[in-house]
């Protein structure tokens, strides 16, 4: 069997912040009534994470669960475990109206690391979202657009961000991020 | 009216330009006219002009809520062409284009008609096929256009980048007697000629209601008092829905803001008009040297003559691919106009459910080119009750499913 490879095969860039292809990531879309106890329990059981509230992301170990919409969550796990996660969800939600699909290979993930203000600035150059520290920080999750393509991001911790987008536009996204993070292009908008 | 001529310029130069007459009178409204036209844009003024010129009807008032030519007439990017697809379109747009050829002489007013040629780029295979089809249709319609190949495109437009990374130029539909004209001058020229025929152009006067008796129009209420009339022509572009409501009927029209922008003036670099429908942008160079750029329309109903900011970014981004030099230009001004969109992207020239009320609207993003032809047909419709040029453009065509689909030929907003 062919070996799975991430979209940009580990490409990286050093500028205002470090931008890197974050490698393969398991991703499972779960659709259903996120308010229902059954889904909360299933998500907890399968990922170890609590069901996130509106526009939040929760994490436990190497898993995370992001709120995508009132009826959609995204489970993140190691790439090799996505199918098993789907199967586990199907078992846990037997008889409950839901849909769980492995979408890992439809996506690309980027990791941004560096100065917190610079990191916010790089994202704010591309997305019409409020990236001030009061409005967005670790634990928050935002679906939006980055320039011409849809994407989503969150901050696993201060000074780090993850961006996901469709794999088909991975090169475009990398080019956007590296342009926004080009050396000498700092605006200092979020500097204290 | 004293005629404009080279001699007049010389004469006035010798007397400190003190002898120029006002181009048109600004009278107080009278109590009654045979015909009232609402809207002193190009189309309303042209309608009045041809009522007088072709039918001898001169007891006419043109009523304008703002200043004449201050609507879309003074906000458009002035592209004039007649390379549409359907026969009724070819008839009215080509009539219009041919009237532009002699307009400066007919009106004794320099409208700066510049038949510099209009090029519509084909940047996908679908567009190539579409334009080949249009060129064939135009030949049958007697409209002179042809499909040209990339080397000829490059020869006509040296600043173009044929090998854009995403949308290479595969050819173009070329109409060499198409071009541009000075938009304000068209309105001013018609206004001067109408005034000279004794018509009243009443600015700063809004029509607020249409008075009816027994299903027939008897007059209008305006911000400057009531005015009686036998016939009423509504020619108000983006405000058509609002005026129709005041006359008691409805229209299949959405009003949206359409934008344009111009760059700083630069040395002459492009002497044709280029339209790129796939990437959505078009450009020409004005006599002052500014690059005149047509932008996008907002995706929602709106009456703010401004438009959303992000369209500027989208338009310029699209153009930079095809014209890399645009990336070095500073943009000077941006503005918007409210365009009246129909579902089939063709106009409405029609009687209405109210007897004596006629409507001329739906020109949307592309009616400047139609100004004289539209006025010609509307005048005939109002004078005689029917006009061959207007025949296909009735309000009933929607009910009857006789759409005149120009959504493809119209491409971008122009």
């Amino acid at each position, binding site marked *: 069997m062919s070996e799975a490879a991430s979209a940009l095969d580990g490409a990286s860039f050093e500028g205002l912040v470090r931008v890197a292809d974050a490698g393969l990531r398991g991703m499972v879309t779960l659709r259903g009534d996120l308010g229902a106890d059954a889904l909360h329990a299933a998500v907890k059981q399968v990922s170890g994470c609590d069901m996130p509230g509106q526009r939040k992301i929760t994490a436990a170990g190497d898993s995370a669960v992001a709120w995508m919409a009132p009826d959609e969550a995204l489970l993140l796990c190691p790439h090799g475990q996505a199918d098993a996660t789907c199967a586990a969800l199907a078992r846990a939600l037997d008889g409950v109206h839901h849909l769980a699909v492995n979408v890992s290979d439809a996506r690309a993930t980027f990791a941004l690391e560096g100065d917190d203000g610079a990191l916010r600035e790089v994202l704010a150059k591309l997305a019409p979202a409020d990236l001030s520290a009061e409005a967005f920080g670790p634990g928050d999750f935002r679906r939006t657009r980055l320039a011409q393509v849809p994407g989503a991001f969150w901050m696993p911790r201060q000074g780090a961000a993850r961006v996901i987008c469709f794999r088909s536009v991975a090169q475009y996204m990398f080019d956007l991020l590296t342009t926004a993070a080009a050396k000498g292009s700092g605006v200092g908008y979020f500097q204290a | 009216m004293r005629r404009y001529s080279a001699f007049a310029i010389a004469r006035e130069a010798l007397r400190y330009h003190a002898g120029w007459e006002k181009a048109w009178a600004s009278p107080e409204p009278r109590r009654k006219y045979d015909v009232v036209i609402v809207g002193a844009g190009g189309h309303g003024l042209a309608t009045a002009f041809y009522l007088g010129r072709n039918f001898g009807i001169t007891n006419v008032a043109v009523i304008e809520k703002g200043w004449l030519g201050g609507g879309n007439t003074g906000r458009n990017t002035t592209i004039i062409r007649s390379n549409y697809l359907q026969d009724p379109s070819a008839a009215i747009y080509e009539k219009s284009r041919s009237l532009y050829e002699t307009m400066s002489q007919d009106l004794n007013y320099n409208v700066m008609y510049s038949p510099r040629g209009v090029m519509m780029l084909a940047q996908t295979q679908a567009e190539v096929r579409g334009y080949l089809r249009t060129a064939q249709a135009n030949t049958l319609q007697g409209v002179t256009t042809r499909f040209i190949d990339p080397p000829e495109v490059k020869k006509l437009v040296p600043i173009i980048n044929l090998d854009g990374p995403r949308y290479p130029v595969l050819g173009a539909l070329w109409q060499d007697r198409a071009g541009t004209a000075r938009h304000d001058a068209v309105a001013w020229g018609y206004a001067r000629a109408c005034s000279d025929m004794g018509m009243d152009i009443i600015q700063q006067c809004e029509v607020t209601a249409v008075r009816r008796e027994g299903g027939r129009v008897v007059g209008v209420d305006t911000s400057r008092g009531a005015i009686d009339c036998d016939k009423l022509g509504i020619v108000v572009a983006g*405000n058509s829905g609002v005026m129709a409501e005041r006359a008691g009927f409805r229209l299949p029209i959405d009003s949206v803001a359409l934008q344009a922008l111009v760059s700083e003036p630069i040395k002459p670099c492009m002497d044709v008009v280029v339209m790129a429908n796939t990437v959505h942008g078009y450009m020409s160079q004005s006599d002052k040297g500014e690059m005149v750029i047509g932008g996008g329309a907002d995706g929602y*109903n709106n009456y703010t003559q401004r438009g959303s900011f992000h369209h500027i970014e989208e338009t310029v981004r699209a153009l930079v691919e095809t014209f890399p030099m645009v990336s070095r230009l500073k943009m000077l001004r941006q503005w918007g106009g409210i365009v009246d969109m129909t579902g089939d992207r063709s106009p409405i020239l029609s009687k209405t459910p109210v007897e004596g009320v006629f409507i001329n609207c739906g020109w949307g993003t592309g009616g400047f080119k139609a100004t004289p032809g539209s006025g010609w047909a509307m005048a005939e419709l109002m004078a005689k009750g029917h006009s061959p040029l207007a025949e296909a453009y009735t309000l009933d065509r929607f009910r009857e499913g006789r759409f005149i689909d120009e959504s493809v030929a119209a491409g971008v907003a122009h």
Partner: protein
Amino acid sequence: MLILHCPYCGVMADETELHGGGEAHLTRHGPGSSDEEFHDYLFAKENPRGVHFERWRHVNGCGKWFHAARDTATLEVFGTYSAQTTEPPQAIRDAITARRPGWTWRHLAGSAK
């Protein structure tokens, strides 16, 4: 530039995250309806200069459809509300009445003051 509050994910969404879906609260006349009803459904549009009700979708966001009430002449937004309704809720109507006493839209009307 319009900014609408998405009632589903709670963000103040910039116009570039959204897609306009046109006139709201349409009754979809189809087979069995009269010619008149079908014509009006397709062509007799609401195109007011003033208070208007529309459908919008948060495309670059949660992906949900919702409703918005706004003024087409000033771009003032009176409020947004759930997609699962055939009429604007009372709170939205009150918000409009507070700003535009005497407003009307189709058969709907605010109180005269």
